[in-house]
């Protein structure tokens, strides 16, 4: 197996590259990132700094170095992480990059597999259907949703729409939120405050994923032959109040309508990325992705906890 990994300099991408290189069946890994410096050195690893938002760059990558190296699996997880950023450039990074990369992979005959690391945030959380979200749960198609969410839904659906349309085997992993720095985690940012405000009267169940489990799921998806959409839950499922307490933070319940302006003010003053409007439904009704399908088809079981 020869694997191309986008987002190679981000924590999950770097972790995946390490995991792949630890697998003797992996002959070569081609890492792609925006930074000039490669995240590691290894005889079976090569690195390219490529701006994938440029269609020509995607084309040249897949039909150039990827073809030369005999890449047969592409793992794409390079989505824009900052939730407060918006606009055409962010959309291009999230959606157009994914679309272009997928189309180029379909046209390049050596590539046989495309794995997208999507996110559990693509699901619409509703009071009427809380708790377990399986892969058939409704997606968040509300045009008022933040761009961070809308872009992920669009990228996810763009890839899902190509499933079965070519010889490329397509896998979409809808991963729970990775609670770690540098991953774009909203909860990580939320828990950076000593005092965490939450809606009064609500204490939803939250599921978070460790980097190690996210990497393991991607490694499994890259190596299997099937295709489909899979939820990837984490090993930690707990109420929001417990998550706050176990993170050593102070939990302060506040009437819901006050939270969005308070967190907007915090972002304005301190520059944090946490957006309450993006997490409003999750902080009221929860939503835990159901990993039954990934367990059955991929053999994925979360094992590594990231909450003490």
């Amino acid at each position, binding site marked *: 197996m020869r694997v191309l990994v986008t987002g190679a300099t981000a924590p999950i991408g770097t972790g995946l590259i390490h995991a792949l290189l630890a697998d003797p069946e992996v002959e070569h890994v081609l890492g792609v990132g925006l930074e000039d410096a490669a995240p590691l050195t290894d005889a079976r690893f090569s690195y390219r700094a490529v701006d994938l938002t440029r269609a020509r760059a995607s084309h040249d990558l897949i039909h150039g170095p990827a073809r030369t190296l005999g890449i047969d699996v592409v793992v794409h997880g390079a989505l824009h992480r900052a939730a407060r950023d918006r606009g055409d450039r962010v959309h291009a990074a999230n959606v157009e990059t994914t679309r272009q990369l997928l189309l180029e992979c379909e046209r390049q005959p050596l590539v046989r597999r495309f794995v997208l690391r999507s996110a559990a945030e693509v699901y619409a959380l509703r009071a*009427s259907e809380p*708790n377990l979200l399986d892969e058939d749960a409704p997606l968040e198609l509300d045009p008022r949703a933040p761009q961070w969410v809308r872009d992920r839904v669009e990228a996810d659906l763009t890839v899902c729409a190509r499933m079965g349309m070519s010889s490329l085997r397509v896998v979409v992993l809808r991963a729970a939120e990775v609670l770690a720095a540098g991953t774009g985690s909203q909860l990580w940012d939320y828990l950076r405050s000593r005092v965490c405000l939450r809606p009064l009267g609500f204490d939803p*169940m939250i599921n978070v994923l460790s980097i190690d489990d996210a990497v393991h799921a991607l490694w499994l998806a890259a190596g299997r032959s099937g295709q489909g959409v899979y939820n990837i839950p984490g090993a930690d*499922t707990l109420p929001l109040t417990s998550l706050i307490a176990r993170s050593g933070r102070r939990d302060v319940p506040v009437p819901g309508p006050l939270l969005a302006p308070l967190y907007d003010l915090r972002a304005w003053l301190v520059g944090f990325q946490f957006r309450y409007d993006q997490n409003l439904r999750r902080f009221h009704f*929860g939503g835990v992705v159901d990993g039954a399908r990934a367990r059955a088809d991929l053999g994925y079981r979360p094992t590594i906890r990231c909450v003490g």
Partner: protein
Amino acid sequence: MLVTTAFHDEGHGYDLFGFHPATAARVARVVAPLYDRYFRVRSHGNERVPAGRAILVANHSGVLPIDAVMLWLDILRHTGRLARVVADRFVPRLPFVGTWMARTGAISGSRANVRCLLERDELLAIFPEGVTGVAKPRAQQYQLQAWRVGHVELAIRHQAPVVPVAIIGAEESWPMLLRIGALHPFGAPYLPVPASPLPLPVSYEIYYGAPIELHRGLAADRADDPDVLAEAAARSRAALEALIAHGLAERRSRRP
């Protein structure tokens, strides 16, 4: 008192749905005086509740679902099992109430939720009348209202027996004066106005019927056949109606 045979700890003392045994035990202690002294609940035939996956199907009434709470505690006391009460879909919107119900094991009736629980051989408690049961007028006490077929679909798809449960007494304990349909607090279908400020201390009798194997001879995919569902729902409804009639007759026979 709280037996946790059905508890699947996700590592932090809660299950996927937010059930927390210690909180449930506290709630059971708080509710016990209502069960023992206020409503003086008597349980009949609880040994009929099977050990594995099963669906309790009960009549529903009252301004608030006190009958569901009494059934939950009755099951806990007499079988040591946790009845996962399937709550109406507006319940999670209710501040505090939604959280407390989740901590005691109640769930929303989404497909993924119930599938997960039945695959774990848990015990569901469903009120197929839904809100129409709670809102029934006094003249229709003990007459089953709109009978949803979701419980028989689950029973066939997951090959689970259905246990009819007649709750006698609840239907007189808190009659509804009127429903204000123009008001929908927290997404509720109406604002209930009870005839009395508190429920009346009517004694409860809970009767468990013999398990019905609606799935017998049917493959799981027959749960997609509307005719099969309609026939199975008619059977479960008839069984519960017979059990209610039996319970009412027993109550009449005991009265001087």
